């Protein structure tokens, strides 16, 4: 039996109005991966902050190898052997990997150069391939994350906390991360893996602790855990993973795209001869590693980017590069970035709900806005979409991610949406909110709308889509009927390989 390296008992942390952690007990053994599972706001981040010395608990005790400790600061946590890999890497983009890693530990003279052998040695022993001389801004999110892991290891961390590490990674990068995590575990490191993705937890963890409203509501070995059981613990009720409709009712063609070409913002070809069609009532999934033309495709369809060549038509009418007119034609857009594009965070919910239709009555009476109409409409939509907000006049930036997404859905689907462009619609949302968003989208397909679902989450695409297409370097493969391809085959297409002949087959 491995010895216990870290033990929390009765950790309680209160903030004005909430108990973020309520008598949390946790035990971490040497050489194990402990998953900390919980919805947004369950208290995972608070617990991490306590472990990393950013907060001090109001009550409770932390023991490291049996010795009680008071973790006073991140520097202290590092000295005690606790390292944190933050969700969003905190690195200096213009500096090299070695320069970044030398920060805080390097010698005075030639700090970066002296780091290089150390980095290479660590990288070799844990499978963390990274070029010490590469500039950080050229690296992918996965590589940046590896640097953060290296940094913690260089500081001598024995306990590594990974805060939602897969949220910025593609499925392939996530796989690579899991390999590194297994290497670390077999080298005797202890890992705390924070996530709300059940599949990942089941794939990598040895034990799971589930947090709900600040309390540990369950602790079990992964061998005994199942997806529904974990979800139920996490949400507090049983959750449906069944999304597929029994029989999709497909209507006539809705969107026709022929020979579409477009360039990226940097002027490089981003879409090459893309053709596909989407029928009424259909969900078409677009899979692919980020940066292979998905953003450009959605931007062209939503009027934010001009096509260089090709024809686009919605129910026979040509699409114009004008977002406002496209919305009138029935093109709804649930954008990738709900903070920077989808909403105006400082503005109240009621004004965010009006972003599409503020020019039209009843919201506008000529040049003037009808504030009563804003309020009335917002109240109705808040109720219809069960948006949790104190009032329609609350700034949207105070809402949770799931509720911000519901504001966007309410606004975009309010009109007669025919074509719904949904980009990572459940990114960062917890299980409960994800279920709601999926239900809303499927509901619309019953009413004859078509959904173009762009997602990096293959599970999401496989659960919702009727057909799936893969973008790789601007070329579209497919669409294929969802049942005709395996996950692995889709994964192959995402990396640019072609399928062996006779498999899949265009639908």
């Amino acid at each position, binding site marked *: 039996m491995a010895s216990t390296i870290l033990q929390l008992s009765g950790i309680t942390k209160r903030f004005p109005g909430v108990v973020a952690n309520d008598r949390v007990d946790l035990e971490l053994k040497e050489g194990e991966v402990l998953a900390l599972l919980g919805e947004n706001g369950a208290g995972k981040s608070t617990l991490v902050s306590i472990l990393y010395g950013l*907060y*001090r608990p109001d009550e409770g005790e932390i023991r490291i190898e049996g010795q009680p400790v008071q973790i006073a600061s991140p520097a202290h946590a590092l000295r005690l052997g606790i390292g944190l890999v933050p969700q969003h890497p905190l690195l200096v983009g213009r500096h090299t990997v070695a320069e970044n890693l030398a920060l805080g530990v390097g010698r005075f003279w030639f700090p970066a150069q002296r780091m290089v052998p150390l980095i290479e040695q660590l990288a070799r022993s844990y499978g963390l391939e990274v070029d010490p001389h590469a500039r950080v801004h050229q690296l992918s999110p996965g590589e940046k994350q590896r640097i953060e892991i290296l940094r913690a290891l260089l500081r001598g961390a024995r306990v590594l906390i990974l805060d939602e590490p897969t949220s910025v990674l593609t499925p392939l990068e996530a796989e690579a991360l899991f390999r590194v995590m297994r290497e670390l575990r077999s080298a005797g490191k202890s890992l705390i893996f924070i996530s709300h993705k059940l599949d990942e937890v089941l794939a990598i963890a040895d034990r799971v602790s589930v947090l709900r409203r600040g309390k540990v509501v369950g602790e079990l070995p992964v061998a005994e855990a199942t997806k529904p059981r974990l979800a139920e613990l996490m949400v507090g009720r049983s959750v449906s993973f069944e999304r597929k409709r029994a029989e999709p009712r497909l209507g006539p063609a809705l969107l026709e795209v022929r020979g579409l070409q477009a360039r990226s913002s940097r002027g490089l070809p981003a879409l090459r001869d893309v053709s596909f069609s989407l029928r009424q009532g259909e969900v078409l999934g677009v899979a692919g590693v980020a940066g292979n033309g998905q953003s450009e495709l959605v931007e062209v369809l*939503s*009027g*934010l980017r001009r096509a260089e060549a090709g024809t686009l038509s919605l129910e026979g009418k040509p699409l114009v590069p*004008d*977002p*406002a*007119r*496209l*919305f009138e034609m029935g093109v709804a*857009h649930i*954008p990738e*970035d709900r903070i*920077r*594009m*989808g*909403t*105006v*965070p*400082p*503005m109240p919910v009621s*004004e965010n709900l*009006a*972003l*599409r239709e*503020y*020019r039209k009555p009843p919201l*506008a009476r000529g*040049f*003037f*806005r009808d*504030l009563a109409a804003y309020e009335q409409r917002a109240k109705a939509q808040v109720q219809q979409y069960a948006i949790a907000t104190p009032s329609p006049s609350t*700034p949207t*930036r*105070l809402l949770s991610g799931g509720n911000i997404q519901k504001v966007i859905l309410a606004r975009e689907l309010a009109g007669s949406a025919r074509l719904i462009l949904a980009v990572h619609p459940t990114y960062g949302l917890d299980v409960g909110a994800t279920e709601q968003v999926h239900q809303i989208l499927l509901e619309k397909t019953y009413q004859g709308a078509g959904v173009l679902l762009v997602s990096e989450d293959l599970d999401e695409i496989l659960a919702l889509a009727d057909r799936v297409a893969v973008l790789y370097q601007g070329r579209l493969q497919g669409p294929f009927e969802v049942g005709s391809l395996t996950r692995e085959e889709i994964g192959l297409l995402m990396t640019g390989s072609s399928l062996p002949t006779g498999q899949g087959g265009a639908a």
Partner: protein
Amino acid sequence: MRLVPDPNPPRLRVLWVSLGAIAVALLIAGAVFAAYGLSPLEAYRTMLQGTLTDWKGLSEVLRRTIPLLLVGAGLTLAFRAQFFNIGAEGQLLMGAIAGGGVALFLPLPPLLSLPAMFLAGVLLGGAWALLAAWLRSRLGVNEILSTLMLNYVAQYVLIYLINGPWKGQNVRGFLYSDEFAPYEQLPTLPGTLVHWPTLLLGVVLALALQVLLTRTTLGYELRVVGENPGAARYAGISVPRVVLVMAIITGGLAGLAGVGEVAGIHHRLLEPAQISLGYGFTAVIVAWLARGNPALVLVTAPLMGIILAGGDLLKISLNMPFRVIDVFSGVMLLCLIASEIFVRNRVRWGRR
């Protein structure tokens, strides 16, 4: 002491922090007075007594308030659209030039000439701001630099005009234009330099802009563009169009203020420093204090008016250099900007 981010600061705190910033500015400026060998209390007493206790002082305050009100109200709009217009001084001078040009050279029926002067001032002041806005929309030129630099261009255009083609017939060595005809001069309150038609315009326009910002579709677009240009594009709002319209309004109000100064006080065109005591810059403080609310300028403009008029008194009664007021304004702006951190964060005492 620790700062805890507060995403939703209560309005009352914004008020207290602003008042606190002003108090700190008064303390620092007081230290400057003391270094000059003057009791700060004595200086502030002189400033307040001379401005608020008699009609003459009050009228001086009002006179300074007029341009601050107009320019400041326009600037709140620009700041809400995240267009940092530091060029109101130049826009004001271009307004004065346009108004003066109409007065001096455009033969019009007397009843029409003042409205035409105001209109010309609005148009040229607006065009001056539009230039910077267009440069930003088209070429990505930083508007802080372009508006700032256009101030100097405006100053030298004015100096050139009164030195050359528009130089008055009977002014000998002075840099003046000819005097405007009586019907081209604004009426003032008896015995003062308060050109009340401009004051009235300022009050009405400040309130009108508040309505524009909060109650109209244009105001909505302007706030969306200012808070999140990405969302504006996404919703199909033309960001350049909104910025250009905003620039015309903010520059136009500054131009209007310029016409008011020359038609109400000087009755001729003269050197830039005589037309404007840096109103375009002081108005930045006025707009900042009002936190982007045009109607609040009705409170903050008189406040800065007191400080400007008080500076005059310091010069006359206490023999201090007038430029001490620039120090005052500068310190105040710095304190206000620095105080932002206390608006966005809560202060918690003790560790943790």
